[in-house]
């Protein structure tokens, strides 16, 4: 059906225009517009996914009807449509889960701005997923950065502004490198569309004409996107940015924004550089080593932390390390594991943030561990949500985190050269995860004499519903992993 080809474009434009329109709407109207537009995009992506599943064809949409080497293209395969659907779901859950907190923490005049930023964020994420043009990808990376910065500093205090500045600095360094990489790639290939660049790169590679510029380009692209997605040595902004912003922002930033860049990197690996060329360059080993370092160092920082939100933030660094470790293993199977971990981490991390906010609410707003003692009894659903998230992060069977760890381990076994370090670090990192997450879970379920404020499910129906959805999503990913793995595999094959 021809009409369905428009859906990716519609998804991007709906969320972008609802952002623009929100500027002149009242607070309530902006909220509803945001909700409706995310639902509409969710629905469009679902239809698109169903259609591509049925027909197995890749949708290529020519922007402005200029043919391939000149025009701009949007391209949707199985993976793209599914990721758009998944990102919309997480966005929806994060927004509803943190809405009450948003009312309390952000000045009322600024709620409009918040919805504008969220819409722009979704638009840029969708564009990063769907675009087939490298320069468009760069522009949307910058839009993503700007809206992420806004999401961090919408709650105004010294901490968040400082976090936003640090985030911007790291991000701008990353996008500078990315832009330089794209320019050099344009210079040696003469194209901006991903498919054309790949053809040119493979002919350059087989002719062996520009070995040094090609390697430098790969380094620049990888390094730029790694910096933006908070891989280990570039993670300094993470704790402040996720720890002090309002909870919806923290959930969106940790589970979607950094993942958007990783998706772009995976697209670049498959669709721009070519998997074989990328693997032949030794950058992949460097990515592997930094991924391993991130897995350990992120967890160690999390153990030393005494603040629940900052602890979850540092745990993100460790999980990003897992994803890069999977990319660094350099096999198709490891890449599937990485993409699966993107899904599982996005579902789990936003859930942990939403759960943690319920726990701090019943502990006089304090986020320190001493005050959180017994909060699992005072706010039952938040306690359960946090516990489920922790179990999933540690990798207990039944939950999503287990499957991704299993996939990583299987992928590591298949790669003889990198098997030993990958498995050892995986084991150590799992133990470290268990230390800090179980410590927290035990803490929130330690009974205290102290009678604090209690919140029941009936008092916060929306919040409770969000939590239940999160738990269901997590168990769904954990239980129905095989279809998801098959889908990711088919999606990766469609990249080629």
């Amino acid at each position, binding site marked *: 059906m021809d009409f369905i080809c428009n859906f990716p474009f519609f998804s991007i434009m709906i969320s972008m225009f609802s952002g623009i329109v929100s500027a002149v709407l009242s607070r309530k109207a902006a909220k509803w517009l945001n909700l409706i537009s995310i639902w509409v995009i969710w629905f469009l992506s679902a239809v698109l996914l169903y259609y591509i599943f049925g027909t197995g064809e890749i949708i290529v949409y020519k922007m402005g009807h200029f043919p391939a080497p000149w025009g701009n293209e949007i391209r949707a395969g199985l993976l793209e449509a599914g990721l758009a659907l998944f990102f919309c779901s997480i966005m929806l859950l994060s927004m509803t889960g943190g809405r009450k907190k948003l009312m309390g923490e952000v000045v009322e005049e600024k709620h409009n701005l918040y919805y504008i930023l969220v819409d722009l964020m979704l638009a840029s994420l969708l564009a990063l997923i769907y675009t087939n043009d490298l320069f468009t990808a760069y522009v949307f990376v910058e839009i993503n950065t700007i809206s992420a910065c806004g999401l961090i500093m919408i709650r105004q205090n010294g901490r968040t502004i*400082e976090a936003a500045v640090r985030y911007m600095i790291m991000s701008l360094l990353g996008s500078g490198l990315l832009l330089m990489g794209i320019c050099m790639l344009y210079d040696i290939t003469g194209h901006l569309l991903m498919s054309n660049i790949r053809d040119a790169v493979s002919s350059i590679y087989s002719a062996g004409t520009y070995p040094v510029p090609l390697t430098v380009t790969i380094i620049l692209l990888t390094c730029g996107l790694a910096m933006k997605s908070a891989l280990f040595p570039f993670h300094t902004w993470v704790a402040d940015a996720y720890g002090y912003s309002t909870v919806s922002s923290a959930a969106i930033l940790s589970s979607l924004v950094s993942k958007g860049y990783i998706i772009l990197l995976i697209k670049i690996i498959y669709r721009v550089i070519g998997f074989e060329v990328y693997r032949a360059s030794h950058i992949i080993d460097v990515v592997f080593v930094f991924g391993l370092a991130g897995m350990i160092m992120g967890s160690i920082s999390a153990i030393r932390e005494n603040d629940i939100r900052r602890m979850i933030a540092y745990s993100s660094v460790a999980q990003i390390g897992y994803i890069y470790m999977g990319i660094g293993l350099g096999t198709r199977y490891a890449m599937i594991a990485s993409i699966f971990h993107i899904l599982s981490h996005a579902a789990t991390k936003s859930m942990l943030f939403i759960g943690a906010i319920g726990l701090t609410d019943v502990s006089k707003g304090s986020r320190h561990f001493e005050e959180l003692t017994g909060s699992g009894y005072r706010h039952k659903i938040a306690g359960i949500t946090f516990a489920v998230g922790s179990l999933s992060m540690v990798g207990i069977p039944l939950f999503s985190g287990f499957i991704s760890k299993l996939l990583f381990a299987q992928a590591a076994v298949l790669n003889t050269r990198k098997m030993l370090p990958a498995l050892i670090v995986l084991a150590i990192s799992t133990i470290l995860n268990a230390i800090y997450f179980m410590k927290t879970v035990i803490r929130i379920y330690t009974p205290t004499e102290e009678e604090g404020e209690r919140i029941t499910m009936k008092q916060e129906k929306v919040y409770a519903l969000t939590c239940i959805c999160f738990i269901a999503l997590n168990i769904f990913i954990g239980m129905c992993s095989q279809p998801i793995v098959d889908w990711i595999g088919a999606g990766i094959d469609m990249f080629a």
Partner: protein
Amino acid sequence: MGPNLWANFGEAVSMILFCIGFANLLLHKNLIKKIIGLNIMDSSIYLFLALKGYIAGHTVPIVVDGVQSVDAYINPIPSGLVLTGIVVSVSVTALMLSLTIRLYRRYQTLDLDEISKRLKKEGL
């Protein structure tokens, strides 16, 4: 190396500028100097792009006197990319400057480390 470097003199300059800007943005404590570094870095990329689009002896890609031959004009795409890049970098610079103003109003200093130190003291 020698003649090659001379032929790509402009590219070499733009790479050096890129490194200067990158180091400035990464290492300086002062926020304004960081933003200056950002601008140097971005400008160096535009210089690189402009050089890549330029073909010696060709003119600006605007059709005059009905000349439509490809050999008459330089490559217009890098110029378009530079324009887009400038728009992006202007908006990012504006955002950074506004953040800097906010931090300065709050803490009366532009030193990022100093600000972090005070935030720790506040213990927020």
